[in-house]
């Protein structure tokens, strides 16, 4: 009769059904995969190692796109003040931006999901402490909190990852808790309780698989949020060190030259940053829409 399997499939992350018939989402996914590949392969495909001061030549400084460099190669996207090839710098910057965002999102989500589950299972003062901490965190603007963190602990790639993790965990904890609480009302949890199954097993085997769906849907959005936040912090000069420029720092570097007509130093990293975030958001929107029956039915009409 009714195929319950089809009807009740709880979380559909099957790539095929998410993306088929949605060309914009497919384009976003392809774009995202391309950016990730470029980031991973940067040391091998970039024309120049922008971190290696030995290969930089101050004489190549501030050349516009498509100029010939002193060593005979072409700089497709131009160079910055110290003669760094913008294309290479963007590739390496992308690498750093994605790395920071991936680590922060993953670790932040893990912490958030764990604390959310713990709050739901334990209740009482454990729940109160965790949830008040969440309230405290979300009552500050994220970027302000990160600025404060970095002002106190100093800058550096590790420090910015910590700052971003603090931005990520709270919303995940809150979401996990609310969806785990609704699972806690169900009778299979009672069944586990009367069978004296320990709390940590209830968390991992019962609650986690059944309440993780909304968090998974949120992760791509967190990722793009982290990329944006890292770029902002680096642009403001409190993020990554000047020796290892991320996209945000590259934009900041070119900022001073914008008014003197040297547009390429800021614009190219900016375009990459915007397209990367756009790609992820398009994919994230599609996944969210796919998992929200309400949005789906609105689309059908």
């Amino acid at each position: 009769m009714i195929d319950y399997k089809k009807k009740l499939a709880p979380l559909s992350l099957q790539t095929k059904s998410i993306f088929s018939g949605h060309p914009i989402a497919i384009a976003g996914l392809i774009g995202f995969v391309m950016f990730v590949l470029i980031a991973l392969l940067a040391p091998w495909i970039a024309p120049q190692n922008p971190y290696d001061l030995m290969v930089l030549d101050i004489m190549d400084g501030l050349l516009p796109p498509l100029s010939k460099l002193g060593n005979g190669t072409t700089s497709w996207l131009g160079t910055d003040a110290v003669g760094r090839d913008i294309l290479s710098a963007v590739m390496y910057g992308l690498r750093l931006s994605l790395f920071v965002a991936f680590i922060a999102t993953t670790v932040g989500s893990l912490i958030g999901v764990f604390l959310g589950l713990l709050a739901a299972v334990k209740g009482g003062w454990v729940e109160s402490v965790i949830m008040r901490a969440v309230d405290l965190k979300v009552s500050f603007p994220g970027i302000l909190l990160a600025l404060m963190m970095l002002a106190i602990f100093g800058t550096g790639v590790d420090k910015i990852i910590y700052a971003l993790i603090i931005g990520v965990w709270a919303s995940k904890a809150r979401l996990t808790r609310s969806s785990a609480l609704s699972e806690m009302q169900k009778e299979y949890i009672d069944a586990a309780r009367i069978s004296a199954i320990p709390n940590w097993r209830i968390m991992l085997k019962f609650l986690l698989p059944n309440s993780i769906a909304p968090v998974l849907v949120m992760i791509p959005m967190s990722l793009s949020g982290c990329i944006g936040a890292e770029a902002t912090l680096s642009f403001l000069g409190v993020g990554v060190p000047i020796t290892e420029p991320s996209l945000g720092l590259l934009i900041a570097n070119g900022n001073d030259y914008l008014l003197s007509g040297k547009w390429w130093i800021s614009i190219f990293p900016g375009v990459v940053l915007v397209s990367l975030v756009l790609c992820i958001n398009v994919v994230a929107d599609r996944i969210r829409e796919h998992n929200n029956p309400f949005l789906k039915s609105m689309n059908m009409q």
Partner: protein
Amino acid sequence: MNNTPLLKINNLTVTYPLNSEGSDVLKALDNTSLKVNSGQIIGIVGESGAGKSTIGKAILGLLDPPAKLVSGEIIFLGNSLVGLSEAQFESLRGNQIGYIYQNPMTALNPVLTIGEQVIEAIEANTDMRGKNAREYAIQLLERADVSFAEDRLQKYPHQLSGGLCQRIVFAIAIAAKPKLIIADEPTTALDVTVQQSVLQTLIKLSQQEQIAIILITHDIGVIAETCDYVYVLRYGKHVEQDATNRVLQRPTQDYTRSLMASVPLIEKRLHRFALNEEDNLEDISTGLHYLQEKQTTQDSTNKPILEARNLSKIFITPSSLFKAKQLFTAVKDVSFTVRRGETVGIVGESGSGKSTIGRMILGLEDITEGSVIYRGKDLKLITDSTEHRAHCLSMQCIFQDPYSSLNPRMTAGENITYGLQVHKMIGSSDAKSLAQELMALVGLQREDAEKLPHAFSGGERQRIGIARALSYRPDFIFCDEPTSALDVSVQANLLNLLKDLQEKFSLTLLFVSHDLAVIRQMCDRVIVMKEGEALEYDSNENIFERPKHKYTRSLLEAMPKFKGLAQT
């Protein structure tokens, strides 16, 4: 005019697409015909998925896409209703055909007073305005047997009981003097004592106002009480139709007969339900052996296995900035004993505290006062954690809602044996075979132990729940309305299974239900509860044949009278 029926449905077929291309369809209604004369109450009865509600929706043009009316005609007062525009349907709905929903609480708008809602319906469908409309509203409420009608106009839905709300829905439905009312499970959400009087009101309205009523229900008792004529549906197909008494007592079709045999009777206690089913407990030696192994070690004295002494439960809503501390007494001083191998039933309406008792016994709720003596020991006083756990594990539960009582991310087999494995009571290879044996024991396929819960129907999931409870070789099982979410034929099968298992393994059950007839069939002794108090505690025969308390008597009188199949 007398010869032409008020409403006539000919060969109606409604389909739902099962895939996006629409090549595969589910026929919610398959070539169904029906006829209603004015002033007549007809019943449409069937189990879930029979297409009962689809008929009601099709008449009013309320089929939600992607449902599609494929063929057939609906003729109301000589006009076809198929293919009317939304505007034409709107002038029909409420005005000529009323609709009564299952849940009165959601049918009424919670932010408007009763008066505003009744008057709105009057103004939308008649010329009456202002004072006239208000007076007419009071009249309508009185006709629908709403007491203190004038005061009630000021109230909001949440201030009134479900029964009253349903009467107000009736009043709104008759505001425009419709010719026909479609009542979709109008009393399913109500308690049995309320159901009775609400049905009386419905019958009265039909007679006084000459309104024809199509009563859609799964409850054979309700049909027996109210309808002159009944249609039996199954999977959208017409099965049988005739005068109610004939269909209910001397059905000609096999399906109707087995449906009637599934209805639990209140008059007499049967050994099991007379269903055509093969006995599936025969060849399952391993499962049987596993469960019987323990039995031999049990002492066979007739001592009570469980004793509840003066149990009380008070729920406390802690005080907050806006509200003082609130106390709610769910259970008041209830004592009873359960002997090995017997079934004790707790019956009562919603909110009577019957489930709370079981949850206290199982340790899911704290006991406010009193004690539970289990196998001769007060569980609260056992300090040794291993011993405490052993006692707890030997008390199991069969839950109410089959759709939430299994972990959806574990296979049926894992659901059954997960706890045993956690407590190292069984190895992982044994667990697999035990799960299969237990699946077979409760009448499921062994190989289905590999499937996830959503591949099973509600009745099958309840069986998995039973297998899970049995896996601990329990001494005591608390059954918390185990069949209230199931269709009547599935319920009969499941109750038969429980009876068989109880016989084979001398299980001890505490059986909670709101359904007197189910309690009558299942239990040896019965506790009648109301608002947390045990009013009567006696043997099955005494409660049902010689009830002492007047509340018990009123419950029994309120039960819809269905005598069962005629003896042949």
